[in-house]
């Protein structure tokens, strides 16, 4: 277990350094800077220069980066150029929204994906299978933002069913929280759900003819324990791996989904700050999401090892 987790944990620090430095470089290379963004309309060159000096943008890139790292190590991520709010405070405000959206979408994707995949695999070639396969293929082809817009259009006309705007905190009641997250989560979950359904279906069908299932049937197991216990546990191995990849993509998807549904999460924040080149906030978001994705990957890897006993001793 320690082996499974130890190595990726060690890779965390260098990865974070590479990612944050790349962001520093990219912002530097992008045309314009925060000086222009903050100086208002038709600024005088002097005003821009003053802001730059204030933000110490005139100092060498490497020096500014090392300073940022030094402070970050002490838990200080700096202040927003725009609002002067501490970045850590901003993140603490926004993170729960994105996490909520991510978790609800993921649960939805797993539940729907497994249900559809199992339904299709239990009657291969029959109507259920064909419907699931067709629907999943269509779902894969539709971009999530497009579905989000359609959902907004539908539910903006007849508002009574689900809200299409805003967020309610979990502390104010799980019902309201879920109620506000339903549509964005549906939009975000559609792609991974379809992937899981198709992957699980083909993985289950691939297990179908295997010798261990024949032997399990020969010892008297019922069709349902063959499918739900034996075939499913074996088929879940590749599906969990795919799901792991999907989590990073899902996080990327929150940017656009949060924007469409005006959910005040990290995604919406990222979208706003990127326009204004609010470097400390961008770096804060990048650091948090990189950390998050890497930790999720470690968890996925570990659970992969748990359901696939061959990997436990091997790594």
């Amino acid at each position, binding site marked *: 277990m320690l082996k499974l987790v130890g190595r990726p944990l060690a890779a965390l620090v260098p990865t974070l350094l590479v990612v944050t430095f790349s962001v520093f470089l990219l912002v530097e290379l992008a045309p314009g800077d925060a000086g222009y963004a903050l100086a208002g309309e038709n600024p005088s060159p002097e005003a821009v220069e003053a802001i730059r000096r204030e933000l110490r943008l005139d100092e060498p890139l490497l020096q500014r980066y090392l300073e940022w790292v030094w402070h970050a190590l002490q838990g200080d991520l700096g202040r927003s150029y725009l609002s002067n709010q501490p970045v850590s405070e901003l993140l603490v405000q926004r993170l729960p929204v994105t996490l909520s959206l991510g978790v609800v979408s993921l649960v939805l994707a797993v539940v729907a994906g497994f249900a559809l995949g199992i339904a299709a695999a239990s009657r291969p070639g029959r109507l259920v299978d064909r419907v699931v396969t067709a629907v999943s293929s269509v779902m894969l082809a539709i971009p999530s933002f497009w579905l989000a817009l359609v959902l907004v259009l539908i539910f903006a006309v007849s508002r009574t069913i689900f809200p299409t705007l805003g967020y309610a905190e979990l502390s104010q009641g799980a019902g309201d929280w879920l109620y506000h997250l339903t549509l964005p989560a549906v939009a975000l979950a559609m792609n991974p759900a379809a992937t899981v359904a198709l992957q699980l279906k083909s993985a289950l069908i691939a297990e179908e003819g295997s010798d261990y299932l024949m032997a399990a049937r*020969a*010892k008297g197991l019922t069709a349902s324990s063959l499918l739900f216990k034996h075939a499913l546990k074996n088929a879940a191995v590749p599906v969990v791996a795919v799901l792991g990849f999907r989590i990073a993509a899902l996080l990327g998807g929150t940017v656009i989904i949060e924007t469409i549904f005006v959910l005040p999460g990290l995604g919406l924040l990222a979208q706003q700050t990127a326009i204004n080149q609010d470097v400390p906030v961008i770096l804060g978001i990048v650091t948090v999401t990189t950390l998050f994705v890497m930790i999720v990957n470690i968890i996925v890897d570990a659970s992969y090892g748990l359901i696939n006993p061959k990997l436990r001793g091997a790594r």
Partner: protein
Amino acid sequence: MSLLSVRDLSVSFRGPGGWVPVTDRVSFDVEAGTTVGLVGESGSGKTVTALSAMGLTRAQGARVTGQVLFDGEDLSTLSQRELSTRRGATISMIFQQAIRTLDPAFTVGEQIAESVRRHEKVPRKEAWRRAVAMLDRVHIPRAAERAKEYPHTFSGGMSQRAMIAMALACSPKLVFADEPTTALDVTVQARILDLLREIQRDTGIAVVFISHDLGVIAELAQQVVVMYAGQVVERASVEELFLHPRHPYTAGLLNAIPAVGRGRRLVSIPGNVPAPGSMPTGCRFHPRCPHEVPGRCDVGPLDLEDDVRCLRSGELTLLGIPTPTGVPS
């Protein structure tokens, strides 16, 4: 009445152009506590016959006709649900590739205990204890620890022992052993055969031992059923079959027994088993038979008469071999 009586068991699988018959009216009996050897080259329908007797090819979508009278009931009339309460409980099967027939995702102990829980309403703890006892019974060292391990940590011989433990955990009355030693090397093979003999002596279980090697069959079985191209071609006791084979195919198999120091040249039968769906007319063995008479052997249907399926069995004198040492007499 016999413990198992397979009567006219015919199996067809769905092919691209319709149903393809794979076995044709296979019949044989197994008495309680005895071992019957089912022998034939690869593709002759041995596995299909065993699987079908347990209703397992029906579960795959095969078309099966005939009767399987076992322990006082006709298994061929039972539903899959009813069959599942007999499988593993009173009638069981050991497979050729033990490593592939253990589920890689569960511990060996769990797979044995699962079978116990399925057929006997015992608590989990008790089922686990039984699983460990079974592993011990098949001489797996450190059974209590090994039970907690996954199949990939088991060697070929050890997996086969575990497979035997799994199949016999609920003390069935009959077990099909489908080439349980073919995938193993010779010394391990001998030990597994010893184990089967020992278990049979202690429990009185009936065994249908499937093999393509008459030499191995002679070590275990009292009766032999020879299959060729989906049909039974000869049935006899081991001694009869070895000393006085009545079917040219049986004589061919006897010649092919690999044995050191017998001073005979190993002769394998030329040609191959015909594929299902393209069976020769008349006697299915005629394209490969050294005694074939054109115009006689290759026409008309040919039935099993007096335990042999050969038109010329009355007129031929076929060469047998002495039964290998160690044959139970």
